[in-house]
């Protein structure tokens, strides 16, 4: 049965939809379409795009390697303080990125709690380096992997693992050969979301890793800097990010909200 939606809801939904889509439309309307290819293949934009790709992929890999075990512990571990641990691990999602950046500076900066130690003992400096940009992007994107993977682990019937154990599989083997393949769709969705978040990361990166072309200046930072000097370039690069964001969400449709 097809029902009419109440008018006020339709009106509010229309306003909401326009509000959220207008910036993307405005960017597209202002875009220098004729020079788009020239701008995006220019040396400045290419450097930023390549660096963004490297940083976001590396951050996604780190987020998976560290985030999946965290999710496993949260899903299967029975210990006090699990809710608190989950809240802490997931908090970067809601933390203002600049706060994340300041926190990372205090923790991993040259004079930071752990960073000072890294610097003195190993000679590793994260600030002002690509590794620092990757660290910042990992910090903000890992929660998305954790949430997706934990949901996957929780949705899995533990009898599969029991069956594997009965058949003689060690826990590590069972995890690798039984559990992970079964939650692969959730892991993939989490990884793609984490990648998109890492790609868009700005505040933590500029605060912690700084802004230097070819080293830490990812596409969002390049957009920010181009706004000072070349708004056409800023708009062109912005549109790339808009297109990727929307593309990712279309590709993932249903995986995030649980609808088909």
């Amino acid at each position: 049965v097809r029902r009419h939606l109440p008018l006020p809801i339709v009106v509010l939904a229309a306003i909401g939809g326009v509000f959220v889509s207008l910036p993307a439309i405005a960017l597209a309307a202002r875009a220098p379409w004729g020079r788009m290819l020239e701008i995006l293949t220019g040396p400045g934009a290419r450097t930023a795009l390549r660096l963004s790709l490297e940083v976001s992929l590396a951050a996604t890999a780190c987020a998976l390697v560290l985030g999946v075990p965290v999710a496993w512990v949260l899903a299967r571990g029975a210990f006090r303080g699990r809710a608190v641990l989950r809240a802490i691990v997931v908090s970067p999602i809601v933390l203002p990125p600049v706060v994340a950046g300041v926190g990372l500076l205090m923790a991993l900066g040259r004079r930071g709690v752990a960073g000072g130690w890294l610097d003195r003992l190993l000679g590793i400096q994260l600030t002002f380096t690509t590794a620092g940009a990757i660290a910042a992007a990992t910090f903000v994107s890992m929660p998305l992997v954790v949430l997706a993977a934990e949901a996957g682990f929780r949705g899995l019937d533990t009898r599969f693992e029991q069956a594997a154990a009965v058949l003689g599989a060690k826990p590590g083997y069972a995890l690798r050969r039984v559990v992970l393949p079964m939650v692969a769709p959730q892991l993939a969705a989490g990884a793609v979301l984490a990648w998109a978040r890492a790609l868009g990361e700005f505040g933590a990166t500029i605060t912690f890793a700084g802004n230097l072309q070819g080293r830490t200046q990812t596409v969002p930072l390049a957009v920010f800097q181009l706004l000072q000097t070349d708004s056409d370039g800023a708009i062109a690069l912005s549109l790339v990010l808009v297109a990727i964001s929307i593309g990712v969400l279309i590709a993932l449709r249903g995986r995030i909200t649980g609808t088909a």
Partner: protein
Amino acid sequence: MRRCLLATVVAVGALAACSASTSSGGAAGDTAEVTVFAASSLTAAFNQIGDDFEAANPGATVAFNFGSSTDLATQISSEGTADVFASASGTAMDAVEGDPGVEDRQDFVTNQLVIITPADDPGDVSSLADLAKPGLQLVLAAEGVPVGDYARQMLDEAGLTKGVATNVVSNEPDDAAVVAKVESGEADAGIVYTSDIASSDVNAVTIPDDQNVTATYPIAVVTGAPQPELAAVFVGYVVGTDGQATLERYGFGPPPSG
């Protein structure tokens, strides 16, 4: 809870109605708010001036929007909510003068550059030439940000552009960010305005006048300002004796004579 929410909504509504009525009226005795867009290098001095101005003009409040002058110029052209623009460069003011236009433009203060280092000066920096030491980690404000452009101009005139090129580890969005990176010890040195360091814990390495660049700051009332009269009063206060004394205390120099 619901009642509380309702009260908040009513209060916010009343406030909105209030400010709407004052912006249309703006007569003496009313409360009125002047919105000042100012270069981030003016933050500390203007916050003080704002307090003093409010004390001297009962009923008047000052709302500041601090940021890079270039960004502010873009915002003023697109938003039109600014009453006063105080810029760290003539170029940014020129942009606003072109669109939407300004009135009563005058240079009100000057600023010079200074090298800053962390309290323990790990890079052992005592002159401009030291910034080219191999391996020194130098942060500048980005190109297009006035203090960053001035710093590059100065380095260029000193013949150091090439020497420092590989030492620049970050192009920061504004001078406050440069100070933060140096104050925290992440970078070995930075170049900012003398006015940036009044309230921070960094070493200052003075740059001789013959190598230094002097930045001249213009201030003006923005054409189409919601509060043009109060805006003019505020500009008058900044260029007046009290405003100038405060600016001097925060490390600024007097405007160029003539």
